[in-house]
Structures are given as C-alpha cells and as structure tokens.
C-alpha cells in the first residue's frame, strides 16, 4: 500500500501527486502541492473500471468518487472519436467518398446502438465494456 497526495483542481477534478521516494511524503506535500491537499492511501482511490475515468473523479472531503454522468460524457466522446476514425478508415480503404461510410447501414446502426448503450449504462464497468 502506497500513499499519494490528492487535491481538487481547477478543472473540477482531482489531481493526484505521486512521490518518487526521493523525499518524505510530508515534504512533498508542502513543496509540491497547494494548501488543502491531503495524504491518502492509494487503495482508497477509485479502482477497476472506475479508475479508467480519471477525468470524472471528484473530491468530497477526503473521498474520491466517480461522477457517473461525467464518465458517460467521457465515454461518448471517446466513442464518437473512434467512429470518426473508423469512418475515415473506410473512406481510405474503399477509396470512395466519406458518404460511403455515412451511408453504410451496418456502420450507422452500430453507432446508434453504441450510443444507446452508453446512454443506458448504469455502471462504469458497463461503459468500459462498450
């Protein structure tokens, strides 16, 4: 079990400062972190699928939680970025216009299904599986 330092950041998220071990963590707290930062065991940070949505972490007291609506928004952005990549790939592969991908019924159906799955997800584990 290791200790890290956490504090709320200006993005509304949580910054995690990990000491390298060159200095005692109490010195790192004073030297590298803003006032109000606290030392916690890293085992108290979100684990598993929750850990994959770092930008959705929020600090409440000394507890880090995952804002699920933020996690869904992050997943949707990732999903849409992949969809754009896939559309571009199909255009390159077929040497046809971008309409080729847009008009691909299977492709658009998979996008609709994926976005619906994200909207209906109730856990971060479900989001990761999409």
């Amino acid at each position, binding site marked *: 079990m290791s200790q890290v330092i956490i504090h709320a950041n200006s993005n509304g998220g949580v910054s995690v*400062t990990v000491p390298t071990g060159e200095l005692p963590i109490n010195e790192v707290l004073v030297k590298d972190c803003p006032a109000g930062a606290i030392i916690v065991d890293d085992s108290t940070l979100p684990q598993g699928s929750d850990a994959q949505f770092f930008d959705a972490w929020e600090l409440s007291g000394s507890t880090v939680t995952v804002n699920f609506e933020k996690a869904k928004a992050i997943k949707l952005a990732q999903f849409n970025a992949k969809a754009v990549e896939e559309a571009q790939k199909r255009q390159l592969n077929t040497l046809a216009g971008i309409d080729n991908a847009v008009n691909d019924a299977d492709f658009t159906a998979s996008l609709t299904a994926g976005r619906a799955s994200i909207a209906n997800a109730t856990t971060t584990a479900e989001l990761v599986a999409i």
Partner: protein
Amino acid sequence: MAGTIVCDVISDGAGNSTATDNAIYGSAKAWVSYKGTSTQSIYASYNVSSVTYNTTGYYTINYTNAFSDANYCVVATCSKEGSTLIAIANTNNSSARVAPTTSATALSLQQYNGSAGDTAYVYVAVFR
C-alpha cells in the same frame, strides 16, 4: 564523504577522454520514468520529487532540487497507446502554453488531433 576534483579533462586511462564540461553540462540534471495512466506509478527517478496527475495525459513534473533558472531543456517521449501520442513540454491539457518554473514543468500527452491521451510509459529528462 566530501571533496572536489578540479580538472579540465576526464580520461578512462585507455585513450578515451572528454572535456569535463561535457560531463557537467551534458548529463541529465533530472529524469523520471513513470506510468502515465490513472493507476499511477513511478518506475524510477533522479532529482524528481513527485509527479502530479492533473487530468488525462496532463502532468506536472516536480523537481527535488530546484534549478537556478527555468532555462533548462526538457526531453520527453512516451509509449504508444492505441493512437500515437506525442509528449509536449510546457503545455497543459487545453494545449495552452504553461511557462516553466525553476521547480516544476508541465507535460501533456496528445494525439495528432490534439486530444489528450495517456499511456503506460512516459519518460522525461532535463538538461541544464
């Protein structure tokens, strides 16, 4: 044990030598290799006290001993994670420039399209 050796040239006694300045100014004054994902981990470091994970792919490298000025040279790279990532010093996750300080450097990892990314292996070395 304390002591100082003053010389202009360092030699291995086998015909190989270099100006002492090369060792002084050409060696990294700080370096760190770390895991850049939200399951944070530091692999190894020298003159780096901590790494702060701010948001995905946006870090602050904090130095154990501050530099005399902020005119140091940062070299950074990272492993690929799905998309190819590039390490960009003195830049935050909004692609805005962040001025270096004597005690810390901002580092972001971005895909070619400017979106942030993170990866298991990030390497940073600093020369001055």
